[in-house]
């Protein structure tokens, strides 16, 4: 039996949640849904026995959770062996066939894609006899294809209690759902049309280094235009953005009539000031994104979702903004704020993303496929997301 009654957790003065009640039946499939900052990871760590045994915290209430293992969000931080075979051990190697992962056994962990790493984490956890397996936003960093593969592997798991923690319900169909906070109804903005008046950026180049290449990157960006850039994990979306920003070597032509702003995929790479306000060029962006309350806080101490919102707010006015996965780590309310911000912005933007809804606010979509960049219709984009 796994469950909690009136569970409250706080780290010093910082209350994470109060009075959480969970009732989990053995061998059931459950989803725990909650927005950014609702305490999903903390709850998972309590059930896994990390809090308070390993990470000290004030825990009040009742917890029943013997034998729960946990797969965390970042697949790379959970490997301790050199090869997949060593990571899995004897029992795991036997299980690999069942999960169509036999071809990965001889590989080095460095050579695996993020999705493959997460799959190996799943098999490694299943090779032990724990009665319960929890996964904390396991597909957050995966592209749609890798995410679907992981979900397909996850659906094969039997004879064990499964708990999936997530911000939204995209991947938890058929599971019994528990909400840590009531989901807010979101009204998504209608797409604004953009009329091309002047070209602010024109690119015609190729990228090539260490066996990695993206060729025929050729497009122009109009003032105010929003361009979506899609592709699988490792296809080169970030490299293309960096090349456009002038920090990745490219061979060809690149002409920008305006300065470039860049919001990276990992927001914690950006911040070094004492307050969030000091990181912003235009404080108005924070108001537009609804994060005014964060302005006086230290960016390093914010949650990943809050950091992501702040990183979007750091883009400077009157520049071409390059946003790398601007909606990763965000719940539906924060995503809606970002859609709204992008839709209402007068700036030209290039958005590398795995978020299908974000593409609805783009004037054009570029796809990186077969080591080349081509413009695609929303039908092709839909097919990519349903792959």
């Amino acid at each position, binding site marked *: 039996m796994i469950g909690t009654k009136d569970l409250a957790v706080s780290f010093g003065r910082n209350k994470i949640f109060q009075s959480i009640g969970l009732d989990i039946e053995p061998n059931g499939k459950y989803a725990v849904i909650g927005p950014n900052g609702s305490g999903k990871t903390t709850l998972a760590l309590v059930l896994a026995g*990390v809090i308070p045994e390993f990470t000290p915290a004030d825990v009040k209430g009742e917890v029943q959770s013997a034998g729960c293992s946990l797969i965390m969000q970042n697949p790379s931080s*959970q490997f301790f062996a050199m090869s997949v075979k060593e990571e899995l051990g004897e029992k795991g190697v036997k299980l690999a066939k069942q999960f169509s992962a036999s071809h990965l056994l001889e590989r080095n962990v460095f050579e695996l894609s993020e999705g493959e790493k997460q799959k190996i984490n799943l098999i490694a956890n299943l090779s032990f006899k724990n009665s319960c397996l929890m996964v904390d936003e396991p597909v957050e960093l995966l592209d749609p294809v890798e995410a679907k593969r992981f979900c397909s592997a996850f659906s094969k798991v039997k004879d064990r209690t499964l708990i999936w923690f997530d911000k939204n319900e995209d991947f938890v169909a058929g599971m019994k759902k528990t909400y840590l906070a009531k989901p807010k109804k979101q009204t998504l903005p209608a797409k604004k049309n953009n009329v091309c008046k002047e070209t602010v950026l024109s690119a015609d180049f190729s990228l090539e280094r260490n066996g990695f290449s993206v060729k025929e990157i050729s497009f122009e960006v109009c003032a105010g235009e929003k361009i979506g850039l899609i592709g699988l994990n490792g296809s080169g979306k970030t490299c293309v953005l960096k090349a456009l920003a002038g920090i990745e070597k490219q061979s060809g032509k690149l002409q920008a009539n305006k300065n470039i702003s860049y919001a990276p995929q990992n927001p914690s790479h950006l911040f070094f000031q004492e307050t969030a306000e000091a990181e912003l060029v235009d404080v108005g962006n924070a108001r537009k994104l609804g994060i005014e309350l964060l302005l006086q806080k230290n960016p390093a101490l914010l949650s990943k979702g809050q950091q992501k919102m702040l990183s979007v707010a750091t883009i400077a006015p009157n520049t071409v903004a390059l946003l790398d996965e601007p909606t990763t780590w965000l719940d539906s309310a924060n995503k809606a704020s970002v859609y709204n911000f992008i839709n209402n912005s007068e700036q030209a933007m290039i958005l590398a993303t795995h978020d299908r809804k974000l593409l609805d606010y783009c004037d054009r979509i570029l796809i990186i496929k077969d080591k080349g960049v081509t413009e695609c219709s929303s039908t092709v984009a839909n097919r990519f997301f349903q792959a």
Partner: protein
Amino acid sequence: MFQYSSKSLFSGVREEFKILFLLLVFVAAFSITNLAVQAVLFVLLFALLFVAGYRDFLKLFAGLIPFLLLANASFVLFLADTGIDLVHFTLVANFRVLSLFAATAFFTFSTDIFALVRMMKKAHIPELVYLPIYILFRFLPEIEKDLVEISSIQRIKGITKRQPILYIESIFLPLLFTVLQKSDDLAIAYYLRKKRETESG
């Protein structure tokens, strides 16, 4: 730096032999006092390093020269009145240091860190010893990647080496937080793994 899955000419040689070779060079470098023999040892080691496919000699020397200059200056300062043949002593010491660095560079360049850890595991060396080594080298490339990423992001923001304090701050602080976050994740993952193993027997 240690190799990660890439092959050099001596990658196939067993790690035990490489460790033995490294130890022998260290013993030889410290025990030989004859200048000519030290010079020959130095030349042989650099030739071996070249044959192995190593080409970063400039970086190696650039890192060594300030250290050698400092050491030589201190010899002149502190040993001038002792009656030691300073020229001979300094040359032997310099060749000695160069040989030690060449041997270490050869060892790290031709050794896959994973093979080294595997050897330690096979030799029943406790996990307490090899795991920190593995984790250190497993995450070094990731930290290096973070460093490159952070410095390029700050360059886009217009922060350059012309503002040295701001530049260092803008790179060091995000890197520190990223490393702390990674080590925290890693510690939790390791705790969970051990707990999982204990609970399921």
